[in-house]
């Protein structure tokens, strides 16, 4: 198994590139998912406020 990942004296350069690449792509997806959740939370807040107004009138 270790042999499979061995890139000779270039191991650090090759895996350093691929690892950072992967981290950034995952980070982008995680941050995007988080943004989506925050927006939905805000939307349901707006909705609750609106229905609250309706009750008062």
């Amino acid at each position: 198994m270790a042999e499979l990942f061995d890139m000779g004296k270039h191991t650090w350069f090759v895996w350093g590139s691929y690892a950072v690449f992967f981290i950034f792509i995952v980070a982008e997806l995680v941050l995007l998912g988080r943004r989506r959740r925050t927006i939905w939370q805000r939307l349901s807040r707006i909705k609750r406020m609106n229905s609250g107004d309706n009750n008062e009138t």
Partner: protein
Amino acid sequence: MNINWFKYASPASFYPLAGKMIPWFAVPAVILAVIGLIMGLFILPPDFKQGESYRIIFIHVPAAWMSMVIYLAMAFWAIIGMVWNSRLSSMMATALAPTGAIFCFLALWTGALWGKPTWGTYWVWDARLTTQLILLFMYFGYMALHAAIEDPRRAARASGLLAVVGAFNVPIIYFSVQWWNTLHQGASITPTKSEMAASMASVMLIMAIAAWLYSIAVTLKRVRCEILDRERHAAWVAELSTEAK
């Protein structure tokens, strides 16, 4: 067939359409990336001169291509948005920027880690590397300017202008290796020739297509966020949120 394209120019009708489109890009992107990674990292032979380090090309070149293509797409949507005053086009431009900036940074990072074992240095101020660094600053400038202006219309106009100005940098990046003496080598693959073994070139193209599909999927996801954010007081969004997420 007569599809009313303008119908989809409205955020309200594009929002569900984009949602339906995402899996059609995301799923093939994952499949192609897995195939490309296995081939590129474990199956293909090393290069005759560079040995194992050339394997960085399978992420370096797609990242560099995407950083340029996405900037041009960003400028394109910004122009459409400004000329026809279309909100959705401006949102598309905004949604593209972070993905482009990430690919731009990754092109620089993987390039540095590839430059050290091959050239003998992480960085030089040659024409290719310098213009690519400027592209990263243009992305940062675009995003910062857009975030700094509160009024969405004015934000779109100001940042759109910056996107258009910066677009002139893109052909300079691409042709820099032909116009000037650079440490960076010329293009291995152009529309007319290929200096790569067919097996290596096809893996690079698989990875490039995966990067395209990923970029489209993630941009559609982000433009949906953008739409919800800006239209949060619209009636259709209120109806949307009464249903399940």
